[in-house]
């Protein structure tokens, strides 16, 4: 009995409960986001969107997921099998791991690492590797094109993203996400770093491979891009990773700029989720407003505008901090 109590209070139990919670959150979040995206896109085009299954089509994505699980896992001929099978796992696992350090509220955090932000940024970069693996191993020209574009895109957005985050880190002096939230007790950082916020949102859109930077998928040019050859649950893992990635970048934006779980009246978790979904709505809003850029345009945009602006922002931040 004592042993059980000891175990329940221990770090291990916290991890297990956290992991189960995270897996539940990931799947529910993905189902909700797909439904939300379909609704948002529909209403922006004056359509009602899914309406048939459940209240305003709320159960539609559940049905889709069940259908997807029932599909055959096709492995095309002459694909590089080990890599082909590994790619969906490689894209999904880091996404899952990133949840380790996200502070949903003061107490709802699985493990408050002192390198939290670096851990998330590091793991989210692995998604590019997974996309490259998927595209390269698929033995399909469209997949390879998607993979190539993804890598080129990575060169474009990763640098301004990191520099932007660095200006916040300079202000806080810590990589710990809970410290960053604690530093925003008086005001949100979006008030003092509006440029950084805008740059971060742009880079986050590129990182999640969403329009106008959805070059690796580009369904009007490359069939489905890097996951053209994937079916069934393997495809579903790519899909799940994409939408979970959206949640993660929005969660980081919430933590860095919008004061994390801080807010009056409501409990911290509710505030956190509200802010996250508001940012996700903005990302969806982008998708249904802006047309896709060419990848030379993206690289030009990133290197000529985003990186200089991020550097200027960083320098000004450093200067202000030094003079204060």
């Amino acid at each position, binding site marked *: 009995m004592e042993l059980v109590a000891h175990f329940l209070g221990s770090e291990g139990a916290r991890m297990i409960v956290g992991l189960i919670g995270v897996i539940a959150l990931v799947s529910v979040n993905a189902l909700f986001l797909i439904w939300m995206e379909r609704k*948002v896109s529909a209403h*922006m085009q*004056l*359509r*009602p969107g899914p*309406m048939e299954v459940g209240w305003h089509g709320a159960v539609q994505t559940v049905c889709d997921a069940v259908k997807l699980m029932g599909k055959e896992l096709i492995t095309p001929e002459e694909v590089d099998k080990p890599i082909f099978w590994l790619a969906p796992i490689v894209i999904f696992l880091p996404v899952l791991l990133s949840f380790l350090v996200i502070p949903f509220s003061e107490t709802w955090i699985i493990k408050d690492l002192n390198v939290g932000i670096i851990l998330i940024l590091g793991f989210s970069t692995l998604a590019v590797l997974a996309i490259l693996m998927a595209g390269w191993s698929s033995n399909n020209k469209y997949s390879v094109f998607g993979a190539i574009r993804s890598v080129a895109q990575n060169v474009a957005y990763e640098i301004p993203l990191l520099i932007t985050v660095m200006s916040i880190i300079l202000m806080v002096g810590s990589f710990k996400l809970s410290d960053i939230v604690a530093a925003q007790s008086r005001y949100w950082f979006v008030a003092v770093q509006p440029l950084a916020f805008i740059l971060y949102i742009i880079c986050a859109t590129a990182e999640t491979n969403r329009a106008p930077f959805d070059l690796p998928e580009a369904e009007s040019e490359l069939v489905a891009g890097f996951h053209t050859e994937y079916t069934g649950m393997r495809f579903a893992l790519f899909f799940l990773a994409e939408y979970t990635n959206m949640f993660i970048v929005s969660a980081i934006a919430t933590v860095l700029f919008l004061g994390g779980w801080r807010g009056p009246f409501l409990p911290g978790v509710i505030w956190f989720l509200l802010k996250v979904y508001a940012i996700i709505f903005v990302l969806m*809003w982008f998708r249904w*407003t802006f047309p896709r850029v060419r990848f030379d345009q993206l690289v030009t945009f990133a290197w000529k505008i985003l990186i200089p602006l991020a550097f200027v922002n960083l320098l000004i931040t450093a200067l202000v901090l030094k003079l204060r």
Partner: protein
Amino acid sequence: MMSYFKEIAVGFWSLLAGMAVTIRYFVKPIVTVQYPREKLQMTPRYRGYPQFVIDPETKTHKCIACEMCARICPSQLITVEGVKLIGAKQKVPLVYLHEHQYCSLCGLCVEVCPTAALEFSQEYRLAGYRREDCVIDHMTLLQKRQQALGWPITPIPVPPTEEELAEAAAKEAKIKEAKAKAAAEAKAKEAEAAKAKEAPAKEAPEEEAPGKEPPAKEDQEVKE
């Protein structure tokens, strides 16, 4: 250097303008109709298949089964069978079939109708599973529409049987006979009266002064 910042500012502003457009559309009411559950309101000039006009006074159709529509139809797709009910002056339609699968919606039937009994309907959902589903039975369609309006339903007329017809014919014959008799009597009377008129005219010159009143009396009688 200035142009660089200007370009960024203009570009950013254009992005915001685009987002303003989409968010305005986002809050606008949707225009899509959920097809099998909801129905569009067609414009008054929409030409669906022809259907009976429901007369708001009599609350039924105005068709007299003259078959003008059937005759003018270029595709010959209208079948009208009229019947004259016992005691009625005009025919009423018994069967009115419109094989809409052949219809070109030329509207000649609507135009030619002497009693303006046809109009274009507002119905646009015409899909069916078989060709037979496209045949429109105007009599039952009328009943359905009357039911929807909550008005009395026009029954499909029952054509009179042979016996009834014979009976009616006999009755008619009797009436005719009676009429003929009456006519004959009237004729006879007239003839008599004419004779009576003629007679005094002949007699009149003979008794001039004293007999002036009697012929006048006779005239009166004839008139009566």
